[in-house]
């Protein structure tokens, strides 16, 4: 077997010197010693370093002779095999021995010296992922800068430089601050949704919590649950955590726990403000009298267990200016100024029933709805109107010349005076002269209205037509008069009752009208009758029992209003209604009047 040993060296000028020699033997010795077949003058190589033997199958076996190995194809080994057809490379010190088979069958060993690699450390750096990715530091700067600029500097700068936008409930005015929508912690409630793009309508100044005055700039006339100092006294002590939070928050200018935003927290999604639960009310009301010493309210926390008796508003004396509230548990005597026995009208076999049967308008005995018609919201009832409810039986028709008007003594006087002077039928269009006798209408037409005076006196005195329902009295100058009719337009002034929701019940289930003999009976049901079905919020719901929290009958801002998931909120102090005809001095509703006197 022949080896072609080819040594390639470089001159100082870089010229390549190639020396070939052929060794015809089966094994080669490699080392630093001069007697080796391949002599490598390199201190890193041992004197007798390795040997190459040709094996039977034509492959070459490379064996290291000392303790130091060599690198075969870059891998550090102590011995190895090279197939000359594929070739291989042996590294010994700085020498690289490339083994390959020539076409004529000789095995060429090409020896080159390699310069020590200086850039190797740099090459290893390529193994790090950092070599193909942007630096962490650069990415950090970019991300942090983008976030700080877009989400902090732009909104803050534009807030400082802006012309403030006005609050606009129509939603047409957009806020002047850029990108502050990214600060919104959540969508606004349904009622405030139009303000979504105008953060400044509520967040007026930087680092200042939303103020009550900002809320009230739109929500004018909202009812206060009670005066602020009384609310503060009535509140139970805050928990330690809440107390610390409020102390810090109030130190930083936030309005206290009685401020609007402490209950009306916004950015909770497109929902409506929920009614306060039973606990919300009972926190204060459970033992309110213990803190608010002068309150007339008793403790309340669960409708089924602890709720004060109802105290309906009523007129306690004839012609009183204001209604009063009944004492709890008392049996009030109502002085409405009317005579009205409910039992007579409701008795299905009595005279009233017979009369009703005979009238086309009714055709059957009277029912409650014949007189009491529901209000438009179906929650309550319209005031009973004499003309609609009573007149078909209690007629004011006057002898074929029309009827007397109801409601005012002045009208009565005019109508009675007209009985004699009113239009009547004539045989011809001409009046014959000379007929001045008592049979003619002359005296009635041109004489003193004696008959009218007598008529009024008759009507107003006991047994007269008016006194069928009204109480006779005398006016300031001693003239005959009637007791004014006083009926509150709402009996339960601090709660809310919806008749529509109870339409499956009979009226008499709650109102003892069928046994009431006089108008002085106040037919407002008591607590017990409600509790037949309504128990507290924690009661178990059954076919009959309705678990009822406070909000079913009370609202916070105006306790007489009812919170409902739809429709207008009962937050606002009710507007004064148009004054009723029979009570010209009344400018407020009863609820408003009572609330007014309570707050004084």
């Amino acid at each position, binding site marked *: 077997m022949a080896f072609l040993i080819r040594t390639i060296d470089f001159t100082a000028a870089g010229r390549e010197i190639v020396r070939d020699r052929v060794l015809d033997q089966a094994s080669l010795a490699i080392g630093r010693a001069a007697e080796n077949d391949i002599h490598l003058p390199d201190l890193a190589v041992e004197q007798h370093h390795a040997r190459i033997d040709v094996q039977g199958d034509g492959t070459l076996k490379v064996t290291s002779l000392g303790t130091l190995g060599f*690198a075969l194809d*870059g*891998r*550090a080994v102590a011995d190895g095999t090279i197939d000359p*057809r*594929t*070739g*291989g*490379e042996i*590294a010994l010190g700085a020498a*690289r021995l*490339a083994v*390959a088979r020539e*076409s004529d069958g000789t095995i060429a060993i*090409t020896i080159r010296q390699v310069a020590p690699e200086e850039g*190797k450390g740099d*090459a*290893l750096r*390529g*193994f*790090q*992922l*950092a070599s*193909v*990715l942007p630096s*962490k530091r650069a*990415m*950090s*700067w*970019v*991300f*942090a*800068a983008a*976030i*700080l600029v877009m*989400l*902090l500097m732009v*909104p*803050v700068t534009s*807030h400082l430089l802006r012309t403030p936008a006005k609050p606009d409930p129509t939603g047409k005015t957009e806020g002047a601050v850029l990108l*502050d*929508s*990214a*600060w*919104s*912690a*959540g*969508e606004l409630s349904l009622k405030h949704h139009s303000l979504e793009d105008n953060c400044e309508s509520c*967040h007026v100044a*930087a*680092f*200042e*919590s939303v103020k009550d005055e900002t809320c009230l700039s739109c929500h004018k006339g909202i009812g206060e649950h009670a005066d602020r100092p009384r609310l503060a006294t009535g509140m139970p002590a805050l*928990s330690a*955590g809440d107390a*610390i*939070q409020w102390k810090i928050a109030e130190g930083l200018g936030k309005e206290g726990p009685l401020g609007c935003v402490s*209950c009306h*927290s916004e950015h*909770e999604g497109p929902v409506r403000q929920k009614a306060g639960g039973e606990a919300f009310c009972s926190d204060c009301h459970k033992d309110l009298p213990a803190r608010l010493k002068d309150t007339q309210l008793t403790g309340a926390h669960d409708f089924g267990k602890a709720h004060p008796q109802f105290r309906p508003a009523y007129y306690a004396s004839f012609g009183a200016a204001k209604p009063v509230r009944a004492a709890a548990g008392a049996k009030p005597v109502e002085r409405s100024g009317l005579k009205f026995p409910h039992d007579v009208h409701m008795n299905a076999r009595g005279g009233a029933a017979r009369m009703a049967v005979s009238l086309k308008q009714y055709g059957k005995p009277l029912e409650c709805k014949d007189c009491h018609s529901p209000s438009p919201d179906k929650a309550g009832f319209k005031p009973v109107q004499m003309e609609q409810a009573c007149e078909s039986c209690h007629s004011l028709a006057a002898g074929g010349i029309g009827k007397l008007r109801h409601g005012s003594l002045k009208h009565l006087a005019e109508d009675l005076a007209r009985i004699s002077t009113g239009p009547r039928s004539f045989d011809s269009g001409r009046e014959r002269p000379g007929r001045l006798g008592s049979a003619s209408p002359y005296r009635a037409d041109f004489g003193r209205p004696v008959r009218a005076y007598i008529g009024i006196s008759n009507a107003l005195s006991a047994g007269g037509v008016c006194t069928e329902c009204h109480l006779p009295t005398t006016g300031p100058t001693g003239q005959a008069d009637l007791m004014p009719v006083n009926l509150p337009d709402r009996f339960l002034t601090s709660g809310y009752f919806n008749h529509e929701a109870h339409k499956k019940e009979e009226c008499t289930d709650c109102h003892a009208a069928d046994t009431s003999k006089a108008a002085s009976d106040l037919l407002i049901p008591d607590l017990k009758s409600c509790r037949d079905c309504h128990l507290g919020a924690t009661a178990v719901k059954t076919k009959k029992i309705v678990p009822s929290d406070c909000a079913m009958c009370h609202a916070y801002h105006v306790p007489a209003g009812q919170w409902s998931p739809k429709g207008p909120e009962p937050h606002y102090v009710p507007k004064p209604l148009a004054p009723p005809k029979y009570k010209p001095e009344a400018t407020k509703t009863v609820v408003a009047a009572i609330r007014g006197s309570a707050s004084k």
Partner: protein
Amino acid sequence: MAGKAQAGGAKSRFKQDEKRRDSDHVSFLKHRGFRWLWIALGLSLATIAGYLLIDQQPRPNGGTWYGYTLGTIGFGLIIWLSLLGVRKRRITTGAWSLKAWTSAHVYLGLSLVVIGTLHTGFQIGWNVHTLAYVLMLLVIATGIYGVIVYATLPQSLSANRKAMTRAQMLDALTAIDRQLESAAQPLARAEADLVIAALGQDVFGGGALARLTGSYPDCATARACTGISRGSEAETRVVALLEKRSEQLAQIRGALRIRAALEVWLFVHIPLTIALIAALTAHVISVFYYW
């Protein structure tokens, strides 16, 4: 007396050695019998219990006193956790060893999932507040990935090496390349070009995605392998060398893939941590700016 001193010396020496052994051979996860795991678990359970037991009005979120407390704890933790990068660059000894610090970093970082989530009150939206929360979750998720790969991948990295250093892998490739260069001399133009392309391609090329997946569809060596027919003896030899080169490349690429898997999470973890601190700053300032 001398014996006593010696015994005392031996004893303290033993203690010292024990301490060293402990610090040398116990994983940061098991540090001091999972001390920080228990602390983090306790913290998480305490905050959950507080969330369930404390009546937060009007509803639980970052604005109640408990929400502010959780937010403050979370903010403090995030800042402290991010200081690991500073701490690990300072070589110190003592109670606050880097291992203790890392152990606390991992377990307290995990407890932030609980603290941060409770702080949100489960209110999520498209805003700077949720941005900070999501960034925090991403940082924690990449951290979990990091702990897992640190625990599992070094073994496969060492298995892939087959007793070769990275430098040797590159040397082996260079050796094959030199042989290829001379073996390819008899080849025709087209085939020579294929070899040139294979030799000229950067072993570290291909980008991050190729590294992570270990898939190199543009590998010139593979293309040359299939592109050169085994007609002549020279061609056969070149192909054999190219196959050898492919094998060597596969080993290097295996190392690259494992290495990339080991390191990639830091390229998300670190920049997102800094982004998180920025988002937290914007979150805190904006909340009180529009109080």
